[in-house]
């Protein structure tokens, strides 16, 4: 049990107290669920008409179309923000001030602007300077700009958490800067930061739901449309439950992949792919939340890494 720092092995009194607490928890949770269920029943949320909407094949084909839109935005945004993340991370670690300073400013700036404001700037703002942007591109670009900057920070923290000897050894065997980065530092940083990277992808997936505010016809947008259907007595909560379930399943799948990858990398340090082999052998222990290596800079990544590991 991970909690031994807080509690002793329970004695007879503590065991009794724990039982009381267990019963109290059950009572409280049952009371909340019971109350909600009662309100649901009272306001007719269980009525077959309201759920009936989801028995139609056309509705489900609409849902799948919207799911496709969500995944289309997520897929492109995920790939592009990984690319942007690598580029910005390398830019921030550059030896040349004229590359490093602007890149740092850009990442700091883009991390501070809320994604939704960025989307609105692209969708509502650009027309006032004479440009029109498709909602799809507004969603994708906003997600890439934001998540790219966050991933850049994560990768940079990963690279800086590596022992200095790694880089020095690389130079000692005659590699150039690009070689040290490509063959030694990046493969290890990616391994260390993998949980953070995937957790950030889960965030990206969730943030595609912001698209509904700028009229991108994704899942949540459809949920809003379905919920205003008067013929089925406006099934607001019903649509929210169905669509919410889909989001939760998608995010859990993504987190599951993260856990699998992580276990695999743990079990077999060579499993990291061809070129990384030499570097992978000396890979450092994965960064645990609260690891002092993370402390100087990477607090944002720390939170994300916390959310990534259970």
């Amino acid at each position: 049990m991970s909690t031994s720092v807080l509690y002793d092995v329970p004695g007879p009194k503590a065991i009794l107290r724990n039982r009381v607490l267990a019963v109290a928890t059950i009572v409280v949770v049952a009371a909340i669920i019971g109350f909600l269920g009662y309100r649901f029943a009272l306001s007719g949320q269980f009525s077959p008409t309201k759920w009936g909407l989801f028995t139609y094949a056309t509705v489900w084909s609409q849902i799948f179309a919207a799911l496709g839109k969500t995944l289309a935005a997520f897929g492109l945004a995920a790939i592009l923000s990984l690319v942007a993340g690598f580029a910005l991370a390398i830019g921030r670690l550059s030896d040349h001030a004229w590359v490093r300073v602007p890149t740092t400013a850009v990442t700091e700036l883009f991390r501070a602007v809320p994604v939704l404001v960025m989307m609105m700037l692209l969708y509502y703002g650009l027309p006032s300077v004479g440009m029109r942007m498709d909602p799809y591109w507004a969603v994708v670009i906003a997600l890439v700009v934001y998540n790219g900057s966050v991933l850049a920070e994560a990768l940079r923290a990963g690279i800086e958490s590596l022992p200095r000897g790694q880089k020095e050894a690389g130079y000692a065997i005659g590699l150039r800067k690009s070689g040290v980065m490509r063959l030694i530092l990046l493969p290890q940083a990616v391994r260390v930061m993998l949980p953070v990277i995937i957790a950030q992808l889960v965030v990206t997936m969730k943030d595609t739901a912001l698209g509904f505010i700028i009229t991108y016809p994704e899942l949540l947008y459809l949920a809003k449309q379905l919920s205003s259907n008067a013929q089925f007595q406006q099934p607001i909560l019903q649509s929210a439950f169905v669509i919410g379930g889909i989001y939760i399943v998608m995010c859990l799948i993504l987190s599951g992949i993260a856990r699998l990858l992580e276990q695999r990398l743990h079990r077999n340090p060579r499993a990291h792919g061809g070129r990384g082999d030499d570097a992978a052998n000396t890979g450092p222990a994965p960064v645990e939340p609260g690891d002092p290596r993370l402390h100087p800079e990477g607090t944002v990544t720390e939170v994300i890494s916390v959310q990534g590991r259970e």
Partner: protein
Amino acid sequence: MDVIFGNLDLWGTAIKNTLIVFAGGGAIALILGIVVGAMRVSPVPIARGVGTAYVNIIRNTPLTLVFFFFVLGYPALGLPRLSSLVLGIIAIGIYTATYVAEVLRAGINTVPVGQAEAARAIGLPFGQVMSLVVLPQAFRSVVPPMMSVFIALLKNTTIAAGFSVSELAALRATINDSGDRPGSPMEVLLCVALVFVVLVLLLSALQHRLEKKWRIVR
């Protein structure tokens, strides 16, 4: 500049509402987060299970959908009427509480078990083990990531704009709809972005200071 000085009243309300959502959501998140965090590290398996279920379900739901549930779904239940501002605060609080709980749990887990064992070995009772040895260390490692959670909370307040809460991100629509107000959507949104950059940088500066002050040397 007209975009700001021509609409000073609107900016005032918007900034006020953003800060209300931030403070209210933060308070709910903190209280609920501490409860859930305590449940997740408690010795009672049922409580741990409930805490885990809560965190996993809410954290994998987009915040926009949580808003949808509360702001649009709640009125359908026929309970006492609440303004969308209040419902928005509850939604963002319930969502952020999961992150607070996780940060707390991680913070407690960073304290090595040896610390508690050593404290017990020199004869400290449970209360002193907690108050003198374990919790001070957990608190120190929790503060910086907790600030990150609050920075995220601040940025998330913008989502309330999609649910008829007139905060900063909703300004564009308000100014646009009222016709004779000065300022194009671009100008309004750039100013909104600037306000957020300033607020976030302030919080980050605070975060860095606290981090320096409370770093644990191990």
